[in-house]
Every structure is written in structure tokens, then in C-alpha cells.
């Protein structure tokens, strides 16, 4: 009889243990983060993938007691979250779309935070011979003319928006061309694909530098004024969306443009990559 019972007893014991464990878990889950203190930060992948936010957010949380939920998506998706009132504060790099969001009244208090630049990278063999050209528009023309493979993000991110403007400036409509492929992925993954397929792509310098060791891609075009990559912070308008944590959003935006944070941004990445990934810009105008 005892022998017969044993496996079932074990089964019950495991089951009871499991239930108890899960009871505890639910209890612990319940008490984390009250709504008042949580801020949803919708941002672009580059700020997270570069590790900048991992450095800044713990400092902010310690100073203010807020709990930041960072949702790293493309700038397009981040602004869509702002438009729907699903985020409290945005840190993005898609100036034209940002202006529109402010004009429509969903974004308020838009302030410049920092910049770095975009670069066009490609295989060392450089089949389109763009290394010698001066401007990004010229380079894109060469790529189109030679029909060399170009990888686009195609995900409405800030980088994608910038790329679309550059094509427009070069007077080329690449959509549907055989040599133009859209990955629909983040910057890191798109760089990986460009390296594998020996194609060209537009990237922000930060992501490129942080991934350089695994890529066989060279910087081919840089330094063009059109390639500036500017990050702004803005709060979501709480009069449009009453559920937005306005105080928290303001605290975070203020923190991003504070002297202390700007100092950290200035030196961030030097130890790891030899050069800073971002340049602090708070207080400046976009035209500068």
C-alpha cells in the first residue's frame, strides 16, 4: 500500500510546493512599483544599445526615487506611443516627425539633449566607389547607379527617416529596386546583415562603434552636414492624456539636460571606444 502511494505522494508534494512558491511570487510581484512612481520612457534603440541609458537611469532613479521603464523601440514607434498617451517622456532622434508631434499638441517642452552623426558604412572593397565622394547625396547616387546592395532599416526609426530624407535629397526613389532591401530590424541587426551580405547601410556612429569588432564594415562617408543625428527629449502632453505622469516626465527631461548629465554624456564611451559616442548639446539651438 505504501509502495503504491509513494509516487502520488511525491506528485502532491511537488504540486503543493509549486503552488506555495507561486503564491509567494504573486505576493512579491504585487508590491513592486506603485503607479505614481513609474515613468515610461519610450526611446530609440541606439540609446539603449550603446549602453548610455544603463549609465544614466540608475543615477536618475537614485536622485529622484522614480522608477523608469525604458521601452527601446524605433523613434517612430516611440512617438506613436507618445501620440497614444502610452508613454510619459520621449527621447528620440527624428526631428521632422518630432516637430509634427509638437505641432499636433501631443509633445510638449521639446529640448535638445545631444548629437552624434550618421555614417554610411559598407564593405572594404567598396563596389560603388563612394569612399572618394564628399557628400552623402553623391554617395547614394553612386550606389544607385552601380546597383550595389543597400540595406535599409525600413522600420520608421529615426535612422530610417534620415535615410529617406537623404534619398529624397539625391533625387532617387529606391523603393522596389532590386539592390534596395529593407530589413525591418534594429540598427545592430541591420549592420550584421549588411556585413554578411557585403552591402551598404546608413547607421548612427554609436551603434557602429559599439559593434565594430564583429563587423567587416568600413566607414565610407562621414562628416557631411546632412548626416547630423540630433536627439531631443520631450514630455507627453498630460492635458491630452490625463494618465500621463507629468511630474515624472518633467523630472526626467530636466535630468537629461542638467549639467551633471550633460557632463556624463560628454565622456561616455571614451574608455570603451576611444572616442565619445554622443556630444552634449543642452541649451543649444538645432541650427548651431
Amino acid at each position, binding site marked *: 500500500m505504501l*509502495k503504491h502511494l509513494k*509516487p*502520488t505522494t*511525491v*506528485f502532491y508534494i*511537488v504540486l503543493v510546493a*509549486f*503552488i506555495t*512558491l*507561486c503564491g509567494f*511570487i*504573486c505576493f512579491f*510581484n*504585487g508590491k*513592486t*512599483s506603485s*503607479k505614481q512612481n513609474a515613468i*515610461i520612457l519610450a526611446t530609440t*534603440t541606439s540609446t*539603449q*544599445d550603446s*549602453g548610455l541609458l*544603463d549609465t544614466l*537611469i540608475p543615477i536618475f532613479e537614485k536622485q529622484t526615487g522614480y*522608477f523608469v*521603464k*525604458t*521601452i*527601446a523601440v524605433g523613434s517612430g514607434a516611440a512617438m506613436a506611443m507618445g501620440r*497614444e*498617451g*502610452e508613454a510619459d517622456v520621449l527621447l528620440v532622434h527624428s526631428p521632422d516627425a518630432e516637430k509634427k508631434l509638437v505641432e499636433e499638441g501631443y509633445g510638449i517642452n521639446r529640448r535638445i539633449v545631444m548629437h552624434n552623426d550618421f555614417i554610411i558604412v559598407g564593405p572594404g572593397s567598396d563596389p560603388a566607389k563612394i569612399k572618394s565622394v564628399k557628400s552623402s547625396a553623391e554617395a547614394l547616387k553612386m550606389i544607385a547607379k552601380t546597383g550595389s546592395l543597400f540595406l535599409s532599416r525600413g522600420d520608421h526609426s529615426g535612422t530610417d527617416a534620415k535615410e529617406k530624407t537623404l534619398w529624397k535629397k539625391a533625387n532617387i526613389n529606391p523603393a522596389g529596386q532590386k539592390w534596395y532591401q529593407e530589413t525591418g*530590424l*534594429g*540598427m*545592430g*541587426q541591420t*549592420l*550584421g546583415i549588411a556585413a554578411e551580405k557585403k552591402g551598404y547601410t546608413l547607421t548612427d556612429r554609436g551603434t557602429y562603434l*559599439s*559593434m565594430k*569588432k*564583429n*563587423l567587416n564594415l568600413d566607414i565610407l562617408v562621414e562628416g557631411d552636414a546632412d548626416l547630423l543625428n540630433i536627439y531631443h527629449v520631450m514630455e507627453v502632453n498630460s492635458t491630452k*492624456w490625463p*494618465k500621463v505622469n507629468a511630474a515624472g516626465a518633467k523630472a526626467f527631461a530636466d535630468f537629461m539636460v542638467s549639467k551633471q548629465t550633460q557632463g556624463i554624456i560628454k565622456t561616455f564611451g571614451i574608455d570603451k571606444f576611444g572616442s565619445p559616442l554622443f556630444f552634449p548639446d543642452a541649451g543649444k539651438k538645432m541650427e548651431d
Partner: protein
Amino acid sequence: MELIVQGIIKAFELIISFDPEVLGITWLSLKISGTATLISLIIGVSIGTAVALNNFFGKRLVISLINTGMGLPPVVVGLFVTILIWRNGPFGFLGILYTPTAMIIAQAIIATPIVMGISLAAIQNLPPNLRLQILSLGASRLQLVWVLIKEARLPLLAAVMAGFGGVISEVGASIMVGGNIKGYSRVLTTATVMETSKGNFDIAIALGLILLLLAFVINFLLTQIQQRQKLR
């Protein structure tokens, strides 16, 4: 090849050094997927058994629906859960988007049809005369169900393993409703995706290996319980 070796070395480093962040991520994966599996077990086994034991109009349709649900795409579940629970959605007042609780809900939705489908088949697969025999021994209806569930223990544990395996390895829904927030809702799968996109392939491989190891340990323990009965 070199990268894979690097990844394996990194995995050992992370495991042996008890890296607090990796440990936290692993523990959170286990907590979330364990809780989700438990919830799916309660709902799945009870409904699965009820459907198996009763004859009603449209039973085949219901079974087809359950079987379809076994292949529910996690991203679709993630999308719908997100829309339902975001601030201005119908369940926005709960304020649970981007929390582990939301991840448990999404994973439970993914695991429930899996557990339900397998338990349904398990109970249906029992010899039909067994029911009559148990009832003739004077069992109440509740006792009958309990004996049947015990009889079908082997496939039911397989249901637990399939459900757990489905959710611990799932990434689409977790990243959408959890947000991959550091130290809060980052689990093994979402961390692997992030490290891959950061280009830290060695850490990504290491996290992947830890995930495999975790799945193996859990399944090994469950298999121990499952097979013990058989060897007797």
C-alpha cells in the same frame, strides 16, 4: 566557430561567478514562466477534462478550437494583451503594462491551450470502461474526475512540460508586454535578443545556453516524477 567557443566559455564564467544580473534574469524567467504554467495547468486541465468527459453539441468545434490554440503565435498574443491592458485600453485601470504580471498573463494565455489540448487527449485516451468501473465502485463525480486525472498522470505531466517549454522559450509576447526593463522585466529570452542586437554575441550565446540548461533541469525533474510510476 571561435565565437561559439567564446560563448560557451562566457556561459561558464557567468554561471560559476554567480553574476547577480544573470542570476536575477534567470530567476525571473523561472518565476514568470512557472507561475504562467501553473495558471495554465489549473485552467487547462479542468476545462480539458470537462470537455473530454462531457458530450455536447459542438464538441468537435470546441476541440478544433483548442487544438488551434495550441499553435497560438506568441506575438499575436502579445499584441492583443498589449492593446487590452495599455493605459487607455479597456483594462488600462489595472496599470500592469510593462510589468512581470503582464508577462505572466500573456504566457498563461499561450500555455493554456497547450495544456488543455494535451489533457483533453489524455483523458479521452483512457479506456472508456474505466469510468463505468470507477462509478460502479461507488465513486462520486468529483472522485471519478480525480481518479481519471491520476490515471492520466503521464500525459498530463507531458502537458506541463510542453506548456512550460512553450513559455520559457517564448520571446515575442514577453518583450511586447514586459518591455525588457533591466532588473524588472528582463528575462532570458528578451535579454538574448537585446544582447544579439547589441552585437554582444558571446553573452547572447551564454544566455541561450543558460536557458537550455534551465529547461533541461526542469524537464529532468518532471520526467523523474513522470517515469517513476512506470518503472514500478
